C-alpha cells in the first residue's frame, strides 16, 4: 500500500474547473429552457429560449474540452446524463426553480454580471483553446447582461407590483450569491499556472455593477454580509437539483444505447 498522499495534478484541477463551469451553465440553461412556451410575451419567450441555448452551448464546449483534458476517452454526454446530484458541482443559485419572471430576471442578472467579469479574465488564460472559448462566449454573455439588466431596470422602476416582485426575488436569492465567489485548491492551483480566473479580483467590480443597477432600478440592495449558503462545489445541493436531473436524464438513462440514427 502506498503511503503517498494523492496530490492534485494540474490535469485533475483543470478537468474539475471546466466541469464546475460547465455544470453552472448547463443547469442554469436547463432552468431557463423551462420558460420555453411559457414566456410572459412571445418576444420574451424567444429571448429566454435563445439565452438558454447559449448557456447549454457554453456548457457543451466546456464539457467537450473537459473530457479532452481528462483523456480517458469519455464522451461529454457521459458527464451530463450519468452523474448523480452529488457529483454535480454547479452552484446552488443555478438550480433554484425558475420562480416568476422577476426571479428569473434577478438570477440572470446576478449570474450574467458574474460571468461577464469571469469570462473577461478567462479570455487571457494561458491555454489557447480555453481562452478562445472564453472570448467567444464573452460576446454572448455581454448580451445576456444587457438583456437582464434592462429588465431589472424596467421591473424595479415599473409598476408597484413589478417593483415588489423583483425586490422580493433579490431578497430571496441573496443568500445564494456569496457562493459565486467561492474558490478552493482547484482554483488556487490553476491560478498559479494562469489557467483560471481569480474572482477576488473582480468582486468589487461585480458589486458595483449590482449596486448601481439596483439603485437605478429604485430597488434596495440586500445585505452582502448576511448568511450565505455554501458547499455546492463539494456536491451539496438543494432538493431541487435531483428533480431537475430526473427530468433531464431519464430518457437517456432509460435507453442508454439509443442513437439519433
Amino acid at each position, binding site marked *: 500500500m502506498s503511503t503517498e498522499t494523492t496530490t492534485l495534478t494540474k490535469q485533475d484541477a483543470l478537468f474539475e474547473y471546466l466541469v464546475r463551469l460547465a455544470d453552472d451553465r448547463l443547469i442554469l440553461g436547463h432552468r431557463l429552457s423551462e420558460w420555453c412556451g411559457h414566456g410572459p*410575451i*412571445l*418576444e*420574451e419567450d*424567444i*429571448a429566454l429560449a*435563445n439565452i438558454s441555448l447559449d448557456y447549454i452551448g457554453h456548457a457543451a464546449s466546456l464539457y467537450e474540452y473537459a473530457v479532452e483534458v481528462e483523456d480517458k476517452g469519455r464522451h461529454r454526454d457521459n458527464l451530463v446524463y450519468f452523474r448523480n446530484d452529488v457529483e454535480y458541482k454547479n452552484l446552488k443559485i443555478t438550480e433554484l426553480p425558475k420562480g416568476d419572471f422577476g426571479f428569473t430576471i434577478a438570477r440572470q442578472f446576478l449570474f450574467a454580471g458574474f460571468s461577464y467579469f469571469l469570462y473577461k479574465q478567462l479570455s487571457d488564460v494561458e491555454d489557447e483553446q480555453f481562452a478562445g472559448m472564453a472570448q467567444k462566449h464573452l460576446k454572448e454573455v455581454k*448580451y445576456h447582461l*444587457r*438583456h437582464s439588466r*434592462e429588465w431589472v*431596470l*424596467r421591473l424595479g*422602476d*415599473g*409598476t408597484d407590483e413589478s417593483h415588489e416582485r423583483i425586490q422580493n426575488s433579490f431578497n430571496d436569492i441573496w443568500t445564494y450569491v456569496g457562493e459565486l465567489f467561492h474558490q478552493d485548491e482547484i482554483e488556487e492551483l490553476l491560478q498559479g499556472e494562469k489557467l483560471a480566473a481569480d474572482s477576488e479580483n473582480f468582486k468589487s467590480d461585480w458589486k458595483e455593477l449590482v449596486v448601481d443597477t439596483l439603485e*437605478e432600478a*429604485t430597488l434596495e440592495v440586500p445585505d452582502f454580509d448576511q448568511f450565505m449558503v455554501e458547499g455546492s462545489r463539494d456536491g451539496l445541493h438543494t432538493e431541487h437539483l435531483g428533480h431537475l436531473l430526473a427530468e433531464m436524464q431519464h430518457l437517456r438513462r432509460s435507453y442508454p444505447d439509443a442513437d439519433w440514427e
Partner: protein
Amino acid sequence: MRYPSRSRLSTHDPNLKENMSEKNDTESKDIQWPLWEVFTQPRDGKPHEHAGSLHAPDAEMALENARDVYARRKEAVNIWVVPSDQIVASKGEDAGPFFDPADDKPYRHPQFYSVPRASKRRS
C-alpha cells in the same frame, strides 16, 4: 447606454395608456405593448429590409426583441426599429392614381436604350 426616465418606463405612463386604450376602442382588443417595425441589414453596404414587426414597451427593448426574434441566426449586421404608427403608408384608394398610370408608359422603362457592349461585359 441611456435609459428612459421612470415616467417613460411605467405602464402607468398616460401616453402609453392612451395608446393602449385607443387600440382597445378601435378594431382590435390588442392590450399588448406598442407595435414596432423591424428592418434588418443583411450585410454592410446592403439596404435595410423590412423583417417583420414586434411588441415592445420602449426603443431599447424593441431593439433587443428584434435581435432575438429576427437576427439570432446571423441574419443581420444592423437593425432599425421604428414605431409602427410612425410609418406613413399609401392607402388602397391611392393605388389608382399612384401606380396605374405606369401601365401604359413602357417608354419609362430603360430597356429601350441600348447598353454599350463594354459596360455589359463589365457587369
